[in-house]
């Protein structure tokens, strides 16, 4: 079926099978391979993208259901995301980087909803993004730092 979707401020009309996921649409149709699929069953958060302001799992989101929606991915160029990238770099908030696109998207959605979250809010909002390398301290500090810069 045909899906009209805005991805990182760019409009796309894509023809996809009805059972396809948003992750497949992004990676296989649009070539946006920054979004990573690490579990494919909604458990790890690596594939998180921002869909109409919400952090969602693109591996469990049907492409057909995002018709008319706006999606942002790790490839986005928004200033807030750029600030998060700087903060993740400064705090060493990643190691292998495979979960990082999802971490960035959860952080982006959080800061857009709440520009100055407390530590507990940050931990709650980031708790669906697993990082096997264990970069959580840097991740938390990075979100705090980016929030501080925003506030």
């Amino acid at each position, binding site marked *: 079926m045909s899906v009209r979707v805005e991805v990182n401020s760019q409009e796309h009309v894509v023809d996809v*099978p009805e059972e396809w996921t948003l992750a497949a649409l992004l990676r296989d149709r649009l070539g946006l391979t920054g979004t990573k699929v690490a579990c*494919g069953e*909604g458990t790890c958060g690596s594939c*998180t993208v921002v869909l109409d302001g919400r952090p*969602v799992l693109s591996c*469990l989101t049907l492409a057909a*259901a995002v018709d008319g929606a706006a999606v942002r991915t790790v490839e986005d160029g928004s200033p807030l995301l750029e600030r998060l990238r700087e903060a993740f770099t400064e705090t060493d908030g990643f190691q292998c980087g495979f979960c990082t696109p999802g971490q960035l998207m959860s952080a982006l959605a959080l800061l857009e909803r709440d520009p100055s979250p407390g530590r507990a809010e940050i931990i709650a909002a980031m*708790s*669906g993004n697993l990082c096997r390398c264990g970069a959580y301290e840097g991740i938390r500090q990075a979100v705090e730092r980016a929030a501080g810069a925003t506030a």
Partner: protein
Amino acid sequence: MRAFAYIRPASADEASAALRTGSARPMGGGTDLLTQLDRGIRPADSVVDLRGLGLDDIAPHEDGLAIGATVRVADLARDAAVAGGYAALASAASAAASPQLREMGTVGGNLCQQPRCWYFRHPDLQCWLRGGDTCYAQIGDHRKHGLEPGDCISVAPSDLSAPLLAMGARIETSERAAFPIAELYRRPSEDDRTTLTLGPGEFVTRVLLPAPPESSAYARAGERHAWSFALAGVAAARSGGVVSLAAIGVSNIPRLLDPEDPLAGLPGLEMTGWKRRLLAGLVDDALNAL
């Protein structure tokens, strides 16, 4: 993922009709449904997306609130009226699953999710609940299962169901006028291996909350500090001086507990005796928080 058709009806009637076709299944956020389909659990030839039906409001209703079935769990957790009057429900909504699953998952989907039993969800096993002959959990590893003997020892997983049950919420469906939430659930039986009373084409449309209780609380235990389905959860609510208690994670269905003897009828199984201690502790926690 198996091939299926995606249908997004614009009215409840269309949705009911679509759901009566073939092996269609209703979809809210899809987080549970799609993982089931990937694993071949109750396959479907179409999924019917209920998010276009305008069921995404939280609005005053009589003395209480009406919560649309496709309200996201995260929005429920953030709602001021819910937080103000129904603390146990807000607490359950903010503790369920993971942040992304809460943003995606709907109230109706949360209430109707299938058990988290690792045998039920095993792609290569056809357990009793899926129509097979064997409850693998009873003869296998049931460390996280229920406290009640039965044909199936999986447990009710919905965090939201416990406070709703304790607070006397009612459910509206596409086919039925409002009825007590307890009647949404059933113990699976030999000839009907389901845990919900929804009939063909039927789906939850609204959850109706009565006037706010004087006080309510939800106590829950998981396997780690975040992003864990509940090992057990206990909701307590006090209205007019009467205390109600309801628990998930201990039985096939969300279960009302007797405040005087909360462990009654929950003897525990070979590997789940520890959950009796947990449940007793959570009951105390919930009651103490009232």
